[in-house]
């Protein structure tokens, strides 16, 4: 959470658009590593508490925009 002034919920999403892991309520400015735990292709970062408030959990399906640009690297 280096350079990040507010706590986040970080949703790791695999190429099948399934949430594989959620790092909840991260600590601002912390240098703690936050691994995805499983292969991940996308990350959705939302305000801390979002996952709990909305009942979002690992295994939930995401629907990303169909025209999401592909990474170039």
């Amino acid at each position, binding site marked *: 959470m280096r350079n990040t002034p507010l706590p986040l919920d970080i949703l*790791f999403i695999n190429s099948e658009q399934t949430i594989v892991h959620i790092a909840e309520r991260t600590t601002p400015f912390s240098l703690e590593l*936050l691994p995805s735990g499983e292969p*991940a292709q996308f990350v959705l970062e939302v305000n801390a508490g979002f996952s709990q408030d909305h009942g979002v959990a690992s295994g939930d399906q995401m629907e990303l925009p169909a025209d999401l640009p592909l990474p170039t690297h």
Partner: protein
Amino acid sequence: MRIRMLYLKVWIFMLLGGSVGQAALQAAVLEHPQPGSVQSGIGMLSGWKCEAGTITASFDDGPPILIPHGSPREDTREICLAVHTGYALLWNWNLLGDGEHYVELFDDGVAFAQVSFQVVSLHGEFLTGRRAATTVPNFPAPGETTLLAWQESSQGFAVQHVRPFHVTIHPQVGTPIQVSVELAETPAKRQRGLMQREELPARHVVSFSAGRAVVLLDEKHPIAA
């Protein structure tokens, strides 16, 4: 505004003893590139001239290049009493190389416009085989996101769409949740085969202050467990 300024020029010309007809015949504007602007990729050198013989352009005192004249420009009807006044040259700015350049325009050999500009090329004359896209948040209006994608044919980024950008989460219990997001992209970096949040560039932090962001990882080299 351009037309208004031109009227002023015409008025000054009349005060100096010219006639409206003569002024209109001489009226000409180089609209693009603008002085001091930065050019890259393939674009247009363009403007309008009420009446013209053979229009040519010379880049950096180079050989003359013929510019077609006569495309319709309805907005010049009042000043030119004609509409087929436009001129344009499709031009690869990259050919000039990086740095400052100028172009001078001639009508039958008589100079009527000159402008200096900068060129930033992308590794040579024509970049091939690359893909890239990015978003411009809160443009053109707050809450709207403009998606720009690399367009090889024009050697530049082109607007793909303008709209609210969102993802939808389908919880196993409850109704779908739609989340407005900003889009960020980062090179896939690995540490023990796992994506580490700490490795994201600091610029993405800007997105967090808005509350939400999507970060794209590397599709060709997905993170391996």
